[in-house]
């Protein structure tokens, strides 16, 4: 069993586009941005929808379920 050193992560830089996400995260809620025009979710969150360029992006609470796509553990630093 590998032993992982605890690492200190820097706090995120909270910008105007990300404030609602981090406010909700602080309350334990995971929000994802969904465009009100095309109804598609995107990541990372932005004020302009990357799919249809709609400028009215709303926040929706995520189910919290997902599939791991890939991963890698840093063994040597």
């Amino acid at each position, binding site marked *: 069993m590998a032993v992982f050193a605890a690492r200190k992560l820097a706090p995120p830089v909270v910008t105007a586009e990300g404030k609602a996400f981090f406010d909700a995260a602080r309350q334990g809620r995971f929000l994802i941005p969904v465009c009100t025009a095309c109804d598609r979710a995107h*990541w*990372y969150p932005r004020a302009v929808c990357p799919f249809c360029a709609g400028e009215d992006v709303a926040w929706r609470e995520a189910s919290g379920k997902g599939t791991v796509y890939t991963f890698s553990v840093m*063994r040597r630093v």
Partner: protein
Amino acid sequence: MTIKGKAYIAGAFEHPTRLAPDKTVAQLHAEVALGALEDAGLTRADVDGYFCSGDAPGPGPASMAEYMNLKLRHMDSTEIGGASYIALAAHAAEAIALGKCDVALVTLAGRPRSEGMATGTAPRPRDPNQPEAAWEAPYAITTANGYAMCAMRHMYEYGTTSEQLAWVKVAASHHAQHNPHAMLPEVVTVEDVVNSPMIADPLHRLDCCVISDGGGAVVLVRPEIAKTLRRPLVKIVGAGEAVKHLAGGTFDLTTSGASRAGPIAFAEAGVTPADIKYASIYDSFTITVIIQLEDLGFCAKGAGGKFVADGNLISGVGKLPFNTDGGGLCNNHPANRGSMTKMIEAVRQLRGEAHAAVQVKDCDLALAQGTGFQLATRHGSATLIMERE
């Protein structure tokens, strides 16, 4: 409008240093510039176009133009990481084709080794204004981590193995043994690679490129000028470039920007992957080579592991000789950027000036491929096809 046949690489020079604690970055840029101009039989006074990227000290081309005292009428400082120099050579060919300059100088230099930079294993600082910074920087992704995640997914989807990845390094080491400047000239085996320490699963230490100081430069000129010079004629016949990113979250990490840059270059050149006699493929990690070979069409997507196995990339042994200078995996990786040295070795091959032990016979068509920044998130890609006349 095409750049096919409109510009020639008349000069190419790779700095012999791999460790330069007593030189400045500006000095290295100037030394490679002078080396490439001398190789071409030209002087600083002939240069009217200058092309550099993020490694050049100072904002854009201004500081280096002043340091070298160049008088310019055209310049470009495109920044797509390590892919920049192939893109800049293509931009230089475009400028020459349009009559914006006659003699274009492209330089790269850096000293990450002297500066003690943990290139691949420490998070890189980011501008907080980068829109993705808030969402990625806290997790402290490293360069090795990102490329490793691409390798992990490639293994999952296509059954690619660590042994297949290792063959890329084995082939590079077979070439590096003939390069007196190579940082790692020892021939290694598949077992050596898979038994080397794990850096970021599934990439072992020998799946990773070296960290070196150094640099390189190329000089591109109009056809009329190339024909007055003494050097063999190496003509640009096609180029392509792309930026690949996470596209709002709809991505495939087993594919790189080469899947778009490559076909553009092949279409402009009017050739196919089967016509290429030698390929320089950017090799930050072994997986980088496999993914780009697939994307360029040298084999089907997912078949890259099988393609590189059993020495298929070794000059004189396999079907596609690659990185005959030893590449980034064994030779050097100046400024943590690979596409300049990729271009230079392709020029050597086309001129018949590669080391005799690795020179490809009748090498009249070569490709150079670069990738810059992070394969797992957003990266630049550039492809260049060159022909010996």
